[in-house]
């Protein structure tokens, strides 16, 4: 391995090409860095902060920070995972996440990451925000109770589908949320289709195809088969 194009991630030598972020290089090498808002097919959002690592002793987002030769990056240390667990707990209490009756359970990145990081309780008081369910579309259900503001639906609809069905708007912890780009604010009044990329991009249970819930039995769902840390997809940007 060429020493000029590698860095160390938890002591493991990770190769990279110039311009690659730490996250991209890690995923390409099959090494898991916890994350939620990052997706290899879309521009970096950098909002969830779950992929925070320590680079040469200082905290940074692995999804935005370019890899440099000789970097010493800490990833799955007790200190960093503890902070990630706190971030996860905040995400859980800010929304209304009821895994026991959620059809995304077993396929949900938020839930799988919580299992990976051994989150045992929400710790913080629940916010119980009042968030809408939009069932107006004939083929797709939107349940914003589960939204973690990752922005992937916004990016997918804008960059792949070319429809701009979603946008992020509002201010503050409870005010900022994903909106629908139609005069009525209803999904049915947009050009959204179940075949859109945005319809299958949501890492949690907000955007769901209708009438298919619980079709996959327990034991055969995505994260029943292997933990999220073992399902690192080797992709290049």
């Amino acid at each position, binding site marked *: 391995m060429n020493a000029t194009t590698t860095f160390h991630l938890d002591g493991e030598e990770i190769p990279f090409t110039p311009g690659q972020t730490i996250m991209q290089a890690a995923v390409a090498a099959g090494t898991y860095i916890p994350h939620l808002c990052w997706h290899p097919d879309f521009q970096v959002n950098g909002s969830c902060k779950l992929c925070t690592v320590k680079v040469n002793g200082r905290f940074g987002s692995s999804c935005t920070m370019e890899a440099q030769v000789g970097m010493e990056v800490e990833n799955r240390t007790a200190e960093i995972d503890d902070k990630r667990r706190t971030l996860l707990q905040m995400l859980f209490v800010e929304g209304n996440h009821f895994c*026991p*009756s*959620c*059809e995304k359970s077993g396929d949900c990145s938020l839930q799988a990451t919580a299992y990976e990081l051994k989150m045992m309780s929400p710790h913080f008081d629940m916010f119980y925000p009042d968030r809408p*369910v939009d*069932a*107006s579309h004939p083929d797709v*259900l939107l349940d914003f109770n589960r939204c973690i503001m990752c922005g992937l639906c916004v990016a997918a609809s804008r960059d792949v589908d070319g429809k701009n069905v979603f946008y992020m708007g509002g201010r503050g912890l409870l005010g900022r949320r994903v909106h629908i780009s139609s005069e009525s604010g209803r999904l049915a009044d947009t050009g959204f289709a179940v075949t859109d990329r945005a319809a299958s991009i949501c890492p949690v249970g907000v955007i769901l195809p*209708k*009438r*298919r*819930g*619980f*079709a*996959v*039995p*327990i*034991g055969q769902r995505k994260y029943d088969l292997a933990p999220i840390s073992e399902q690192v997809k080797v992709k290049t940007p």
Partner: protein
Amino acid sequence: MTFELETAVSPENLRRVAIDPVSRVEGHGKVTILLDADNKVHQVRLHIVEFRGFEKFIQGRPYWEVPVMVQRLCGICPVSHHLAASKAMDMMLGVKQLTPTAEKIRRLMHYGQILQSHALHFFHLSSPDLLFGFGSDVAARNVVGVIAAHPEIATKGVLLRKYGQEVIRMTAGKRVHGTGSIPGGVNKSLSLEERAELLKGIYQMVVWSREAVGMIRQLFEQNLAEYNEFGRFRSAGMCLVRADGAMDLYHGGLRARDAGGNTLFDHYDYGRYWDVIAEDVKPWSYMKFPFFKSLGPEDGSYRVGPLTRVTHCDSIPTPLADKERQEFVAYDNGSAAGATLGYHWARMIEMLHAAESIKDLLHDDDVTGHDLMASGERQERGVGVIEAPRGTLIHHYRVDENDQVIRANLIVSTTHNNQAMNTAVREVAKKYLNGKEITEGLLNHIEVAIRAFDPCLSCATHALGQMPLQVSIVDADGAVSDAVTRDQRGLTREIP
């Protein structure tokens, strides 16, 4: 209208004794008793102080989520709610007939639940009362005491329940709160390996279930006078029956008989249950009191559950259970079939029926089939009724054009049995508490009557015999003259 001992004529001069909490029926229950200066009972009420709220917060949710969400009502028999909601959603989807594999997998799941729930109730929760005596030493009157004194019986109870839970796990995906049943069918069938695994154990389950029927029969024979009369009263009843009148715990038409055994309606389409059943309300209870419309609220209360099912059906479609049914209804000129404690005997007959039914289904190749889903013409409304371990369970939903639930109504077994449990408790209070000093043993008599109906109550009640109870006697001027507390430390009395 009120029933005997429901409301005292002059409560202001009576002492109030409260058992609070009795325990829970998916919540908490309490018994209040009003006594005069001579300790004569004037009023007895069983209050189920539960608030569930599922009917409200299910509104707005997508219909396919309902069978998974509403099963969270219960941790003991969630399969009942899972299946009742699925059946309602089948109707809403216009599915008139499930695929053979889907129906048989659902039945398997249901019989697994009947097996485990009845085993739990009888062996873990009620057998301490029955084996040791209602007023026996509280230190031993619990499941640990049963394990110590009768390890063989306790072991069978544990293993029967474990087997039922395994049936549920293989059909629903989890032992508790699975997802196997979905609107229009199921999401899995049995693999050949799962079927072979279950077949290995089922014959032993049939044998043990049969022995359990023998055990409760023997207990009846040994205590005939007490068992026959304990909390006894005449009551109407309702259950599902198959088209030929046989017992069917999964599907059928409604059969109802009055207290005299006369048929009120038979093979009634449960899709219009509201034409024959209404619900009364009383100012002192959070729970409704269902009654048969044709008889009115005064005479129309009824009971549901094993005793009604076993005595109302024309036959049981498995041979060993049907033989036991015939002996049960004929026993001592039908005395056990009308006794409150006859619930236990009937429950064990149903457990045997469940074990036999599981055995038959495991020999049916359809349970390993792959045709899992059916479809139909979408409707606005869906009603699902199933015979849960404790009795008839009704789920009723309306779903709008966006697939969201806009109305939900659930009538659970405990609600059907509300008046019947109140009556049983009053009968016991009249006979055992009149003029007596309150003791732990006498309090337990009240609980024994309640337990006969609903193991959800007895669940926490009998948790190692440590059910917390606080009973206070309050004078007419409001002063506490006597207070008894039961907790882990035992019975303590505090007289001011």
